[in-house]
């Protein structure tokens, strides 16, 4: 052995070793260069694709508030459970525990997972409470993750359901104001890049790609207390008269704001399992009705404007019915020769028809068109109906006459309320708004103040003894309003046993603040008159509304009223 050591190696063999080693080294270096330089992009991408993930940062939807800042719709954080099927499958034995906790059917989970084996992200259950979510995570199952989401909650429930509408599970508006103001309310999700390990846990936050932008709050014109009051009374009346449906609208006449809008039947927006289209429709803006006698005041407006009538002019309604072609227009009895005021007070169809026939062709149509019948209000409510008002050109006498007492045109309760608010403002129309406005709204004059004053005085008589709407009286306040009992249109004419009871009015009459319309569709009892069914709702709701808004009583004549003068005695009786 020692001899071998001292013997110099053959040069040839040595050089072979050198070459072989350097070749190997070169090959390694080349491989390193190849991977690091020439294939770097591809490999980096592959690596990133396996571990880098872009995950969303949730942003919540803005609140909806009533005019006093009370919440009507809130987004609360909830968690959604999602799984990574491959990792999750390894814990098959633990599934029953999870299924029990989430109240899911085990077979369902199995089916979902086997169908989506090749996916990376599968929702197991959405929108569970943060409490339950932490118990799910305590099971420490592989591949189970949470995602923060927001659930929409409506504290007012069915009371404001129609106006607010609702949003879907992905926090996008689907109906009502949630839909109309979706762009304003919605939050914009941010996103961030994170590094995840094999089990999908976030190891490192790499960068924020986009900042989340939370949605903005929306302040509505609704008053939650008024809304509740109107809802309660409407519901009571609809139940009492076994009616099919009903609506009520209250407008602030000075600003055009909608203070309350309620409908029956309603639904609970917090529990949307048993939804029906007939419940979710905001009937006050989507459903049309022929307004019946409630448009007679506007017939009188047309009459006064034409100059052919004055408030004291007499109309001969004898013998209480009149024939126009094949049709017969009837009053409930023969009123004889009566003034315009009595036509309104007694709601004489013959009287209104005679007035309309005495007017130039387009007069009545122009008044209706100016009041906004036949065109949508500018409320911006999704699905708002325009109504129907055919042009005067096409009218025959019978159509002119029927229009005078409210048939042959169709309006929404909101349009009718707006028309009455024009009477309340002495002829000025304001844009209808669902959001709170603090500015003074100028509006546009469409009827002369002197005309509306005369009409309002006639409308006050409707509510007083001898009128059709005595049940709309409010203690302490003067009310101006008009009843309507509308026969429903059915195939081939008008029904004799299906009605809509309507009351439209303004209060307090001497200086109106509120306009309100109540419609009750198909009351199925012995009484169905607007003055019997709809007027009491008006009275109760309006009384409460005036009290809540602190409107001073203007009717001190009817009952003995105690009045204290501050200078002499500050208190009065306790």
């Amino acid at each position: 052995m020692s001899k071998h050591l001292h013997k110099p190696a053959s040069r040839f063999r040595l050089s072979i070793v050198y070459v072989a080693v350097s070749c190997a080294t070169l090959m390694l270096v080349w491989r390193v260069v190849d991977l690091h330089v020439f294939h770097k992009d591809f490999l980096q991408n592959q690596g990133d694709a396996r571990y880098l993930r872009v995950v969303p940062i949730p942003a919540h939807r803005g609140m909806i508030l009533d005019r006093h800042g009370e919440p009507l719709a809130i987004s609360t954080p909830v968690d959604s459970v999602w799984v990574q099927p491959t990792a999750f499958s390894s814990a098959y034995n633990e599934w029953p525990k999870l299924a029990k906790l989430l109240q899911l059917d085990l077979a369902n989970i199995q089916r979902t997972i086997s169908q989506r084996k090749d996916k990376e992200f599968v929702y197991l259950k959405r929108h569970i409470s943060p409490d339950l979510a932490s118990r799910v995570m305590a099971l420490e199952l592989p591949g189970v993750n949470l995602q923060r989401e927001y659930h929409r909650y409506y504290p007012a429930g069915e009371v404001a359901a129609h106006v607010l509408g609702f949003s879907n599970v992905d926090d996008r508006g689907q109906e009502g104001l949630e839909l109309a103001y979706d762009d304003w309310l919605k939050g914009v999700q941010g996103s961030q890049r994170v590094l995840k390990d094999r089990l999908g846990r976030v190891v490192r936050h790499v960068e924020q790609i986009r900042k989340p932008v939370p949605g903005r709050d929306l302040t509505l014109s609704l008053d939650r207390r008024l809304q509740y009051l109107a809802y309660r009374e409407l519901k009571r009346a609809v139940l009492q008269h076994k009616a099919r449906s009903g609506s009520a609208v209250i407008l602030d006449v000075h600003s055009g704001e909608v203070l309350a809008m309620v409908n029956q039947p309603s639904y609970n927006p917090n529990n949307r399992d048993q939804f029906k289209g007939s419940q979710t429709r905001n009937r006050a803006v989507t459903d049309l009705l022929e307004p019946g006698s409630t448009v007679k005041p506007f017939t009188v407006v047309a009459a006064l404007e034409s100059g052919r009538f004055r408030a004291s002019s007499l109309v001969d309604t004898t013998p209480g019915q009149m024939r126009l072609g094949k049709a017969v227009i009837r009053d409930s009895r023969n009123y004889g020769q009566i003034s315009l005021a009595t036509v309104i007070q007694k709601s004489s169809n013959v009287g209104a028809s005679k007035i309309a026939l005495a007017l130039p062709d387009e007069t009545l149509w122009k008044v209706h068109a100016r009041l906004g019948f036949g065109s949508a209000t500018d409320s911006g409510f999704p699905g708002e109906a325009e109504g129907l008002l055919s042009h005067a050109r096409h009218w025959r006498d019978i159509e002119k006459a029927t229009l005078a007492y409210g048939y042959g045109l169709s309006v929404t309760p909101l349009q009718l309320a707006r028309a009455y608010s024009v009477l309340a403002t002495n002829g000025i129309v304001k844009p209808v708004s669902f959001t709170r406005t603090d500015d003074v709204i100028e509006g546009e004059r469409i009827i002369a103040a002197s005309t509306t004053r005369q009409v309002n005085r006639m409308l006050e008589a409707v509510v007083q003894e001898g009128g059709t709407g005595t049940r709309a009286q409010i203690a302490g306040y003067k009310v101006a309003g008009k009843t309507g009992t509308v026969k429903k249109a059915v195939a081939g004419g008008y029904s004799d046993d299906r009605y809509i009871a309507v009351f439209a009015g303004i209060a307090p009459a001497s200086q109106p603040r509120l306009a309100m319309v109540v419609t009750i569709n198909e009351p199925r009892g012995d009484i169905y008159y607007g003055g019997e069914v709809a007027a009491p709702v008006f009275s109760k709701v309006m009384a409460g509304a005036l009290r809540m808004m602190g409107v001073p009583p203007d009717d001190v004549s009817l009952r003995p009223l105690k009045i204290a003068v501050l200078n002499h005695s500050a208190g009065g009786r306790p």
Partner: protein
Amino acid sequence: MVILAALIPLVLSSALGVVYAKHQSRKLFVQLNELQQQRDAMNVEWGQLQLELSTWATNGRIEQVARQRLRMTNVDFDQVVIIRP
């Protein structure tokens, strides 16, 4: 040689600086995460409190308590005294 002698400590200090900055960033990031979790927890609580508040403050419930427990009634118009300023 002189340049090299000057650059070596500079490179060393910059390397230490990187280590320090990285450490700081990790510390801050942990802090950020903690604060974000705190914020989320508070948001959750706030949402739940809002709901609780609005459940207690339902008009129906207030009316019921006022009428039944506190025996309040609407003011009858005969009891009203109007004060003229």
